[in-house]
């Protein structure tokens, strides 16, 4: 049972013991088809269910067709890893985006544009990261004044 649905079940059980429960339906798992044997399903609901299934069939057929011409996962992996490596070098060379747009092919442009928001981005939690460094990153280790008390903590590097 899922952790959040476990919590929901635990909460419901505790509520039943302590107080009048808030009204909520019991959670149920995928049954792969809806009601069990013996459940009466009217004509109109059956027709609606069939219409839904027909929509699903069209969608699945469309996805199957899409897969026939889709590149394998290696292409997606290559694209993603490329973004983490080559484009971060470009961003550190301060290449003008307009120059990139004018001179490079579409997929490379797209990769670089995306990487501007990923590995090219300075990451305060990495031991080695691109710049610029922001002094506020280390505010968690600086002396803090509060109305009630003073708190500070040392960075590990302060003791080295």
């Amino acid at each position, binding site marked *: *049972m*899922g*952790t*959040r*649905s476990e*919590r*929901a079940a635990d*909460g419901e059980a505790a*509520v039943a013991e302590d107080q009048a429960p*808030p009204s*909520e*339906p019991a*959670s149920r*798992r*995928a*049954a792969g088809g809806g009601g069990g044997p013996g459940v009466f399903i009217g*004509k109109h609901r*059956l027709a609606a*269910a*069939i219409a*839904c*299934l027909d*929509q*699903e*069939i069209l*969608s699945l057929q469309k*996805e*199957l067709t899409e*897969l026939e011409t*889709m590149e*394998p*996962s290696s292409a*997606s*992996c*290559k694209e993603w*890893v490329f973004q983490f490596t080559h484009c971060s070098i470009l961003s550190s060379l301060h290449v003008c985006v307009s120059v990139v747009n004018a001179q490079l092919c579409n997929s490379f442009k797209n990769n670089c544009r*995306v990487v501007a928001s*990923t*590995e*090219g*981005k*300075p*990451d*305060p*939690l*990495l*031991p*080695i990261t691109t*710049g*610029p460094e*922001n002094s*506020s990153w280390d*505010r*968690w*280790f600086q002396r*803090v004044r*509060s109305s009630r008390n003073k*708190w500070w903590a040392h*960075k*590990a590097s302060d003791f080295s």
Partner: protein
Amino acid sequence: MSVAELKEKHAAATATVNSLRERLKQRRQLLLDTDVATYTKNQGRSPVNFSATDLVCCRTLQGHTGKVYALDWTPEKNWIVSASQDGRLIVWNALTSQKTHAIKLLCPWVMTCAFAPNGQSVACGGLDSACSVFNLSSQSDRDGNIPVSRILTGHKGYISCCQYVPDQETRLITSSGDQTCVLWDVTTGQRISIFGGEFPSGHTADVLSLSISSTNPNMFVSGSCDSTVRLWDLRIASRAVRTYHGHDGDVNAVRFFPDGLRFSSGSDDGTCRLFDMRTGHQLQVYARQPDRNDDEIPTVTSVAFSISGRLMFSGYSNGDCYVWDTLVAEVVQNLGTLQNSHEGRISCLGLSGDGSALCTGSYDKNLKIWAFGGQRKVI
């Protein structure tokens, strides 16, 4: 057409759907010729190297008297809102550890909370099947409680997760045990769109988690007890854009990668998985090494990425908090084994807006702030 004929047609359509799903599954399997870790290792790439004292717990936020279930940061400031089994939301200044607000909830069975983008409101939801919104500027009553400013009702099941649409204080998405997600107008309290439910391609079991893309806020993903993740377009509620298969258990957590083109999911099957949003390919499985001490496989409760995406943080039911090198799929640190770590299940985690700190919430009733305290090299 008679009922008997309709039933026959229904059975035939169901069989066709099942057959197509099986073909899709097999075709996708054929397209999985490698994963990210194999590809990067072939390039000779090494994992991120942390020393034992690089990532440190620099704050412990104490105040809840029950398990912490959820947390959320403000986008720009150092504030965190947390939700607990004690029936309260607490708003913290994470830098000073001070509590700025403690909100006693009408329904104590809260499961999720979220900060509005402007940091002036918080939302929460749980077993009451409603999402409550509180304006932090509101005047408290005699007991010190903030009155609720809006209650979003309409779900027919518990609220498992809620998140504001980035940069929009008036729009919020919820996920629910009623198998749907809903986009709300917080100002009017009205449902704008319902994702799933009676429409085809919706989840077929409780929805447990959601994540909105920060680069394209019209797109969000949801994780469910039906073991799938589904991608939705806010502008097209009639059907899911794509369904991602792979997990063998409830999907408890989903989170977009910073570029908005991939996302990670965490599940009861003990793994995290990275998917390519556009193609549907499963790019990587992040699986724990089997541990002799584990009676059963610890489940993944929460996931988050560092601001660059190079690190992925995943919380587990046994108190572990793995730091994965996303590219090489190796665990580079376990916050659960460090000094001052939590003493119970990690239930939630999230990064500060500038990526300088990670907050973890736990069944040990505490929240902890983790930051990089080592020698940083800037290139």
